[in-house]
């Protein structure tokens, strides 16, 4: 279907609705923690609106992108930091 896109989460293809944010796609793909904190704690998203930076991931080689504010695109390469 044209309103679905396939992106790669840590190398694994995941198909989601094109209106999904990367953050929602990550959680749907069962990535519960998206990063490690500075002392090594697993962390997931908190605010869902671009404020807390807990959902930051590397997208197409660009680090520290707030996944809750970015829509999924076909072929996107998303890397978590866990």
């Amino acid at each position: 279907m044209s309103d679905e896109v396939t992106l790669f989460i840590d190398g694994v293809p995941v198909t989601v609705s094109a209106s999904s944010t990367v953050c929602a796609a990550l959680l749907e793909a069962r990535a519960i923690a998206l990063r490690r904190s500075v002392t090594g704690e697993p962390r997931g998203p908190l605010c869902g609106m671009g404020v807390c930076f807990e959902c930051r991931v590397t997208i197409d080689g660009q680090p520290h992108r707030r996944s809750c504010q970015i829509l999924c695109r076909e072929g996107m390469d998303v890397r978590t930091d866990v």
Partner: protein
Amino acid sequence: MYETAHACDVLVIGGGPAGLAAASHAARCGRRVIIVDDNPRWGGQIWRRGSGEDESPQATSLFDEVRRAGVKFIGGAHVFNQLQDGSLLAEAADGVHRFSYEKLILATGARERFLPFPGWTLPNVMGAGGLQALVKSGLSIRRRRVVVAGSGPLLLAVAAHLRKRGAEVLLIAEQAPRARVLRFGLRLIEWPEKLLHLMRLQRYLFNVPYLTGCWPVMAHGRRKLERVTLKRGARLWEVACDYLACGFHLVPNAELAQLLGCETVDGAVWVDELQRTSRPEIYCAGEATGVGGVELALIEGQIAGCAAAGREDEARRLFAARQRARRFASALNAAFDLREELRELATEETIVCRCEDVRLGQLREFDSWRAAKLQTRCGMGPCQGRVCGAALEFLFGWRVTSIRPPLFPVQLRNLAYDPSSEAERVERG
């Protein structure tokens, strides 16, 4: 480096209700208007659109108005600095966008207030609005067990929405005492539209316990949330759940206004009767001027839009409606004022600053935000104190005083942006 330059008469920062109302009013008065938002789509938090979401009729008609008025929308752009008076810089996926304006309307909204308690950093402990935003953005919540907690009417809206999307909402824990919530409920008769809204929500909330005077004291789990301990009166009990959606009412997003030199009062942007800030060419509308709900945001936006377009007479006609909405705002904020006991939730070991993992015990010896920041790095991570700042204000009465650019971490090449350099440039109307 790639740069896009935009010029307009009225620049609106934020595409939520206040920003959209401001933009449509200014555009209808013949001004060229641009809205910039850090989200990819307009609607703000309350009207965040997504798959399978019904749009409220109020939102649909305003979206149509804004389209018809010929307002330009630039989404996914984060304003991070001022180039000079009358010019802001934003970072987007394709580089720096430069916006030149005659008048600026800030409609930057509010964020949730998070309070630290043991376990609040576990994955799947989220904001109430936070979880709702994620569900609207594509997270499936069907058959997931959710505890909604914190404070404010947002909890009811979130619980109703999650339930509509198939979640098993186990309970709503509202910290405010029963008497205050009841009094507020009775007063709603003064604002029939709010009462109607509440009644609509209640259709989805049958059988969901709404516990006043109740709050979470600990979240448990190994790698993610498994259980939460709740407290109500002398009673402590555990509830197994998949998500804890927890936010303690809202705080204004005043950082951009502060960066531009606008005065704030108690964390909210100060405005005069025409929604003008202490800087005459800058207006502010909606939650950034003080949390007051969607009706107030819309009216303030309309006033700011008219005033920025030079139609003071039209703006004045809206003052009575604003007064009525402001009364609701003060009733709301009084009803959901935070109780003292919440100051005792965090232990010495509880992380307060999630970016730098600074614990409460490390902060006790300091007497100001600035001193704590310099010694512990509290508030110096990527969120720049947006999460721990509101918590520390509640816990210690500290206030974030200095706002410096960039407002958000930006890529170095964008930070180093120099408008006089020979960069590839696109000029747009």
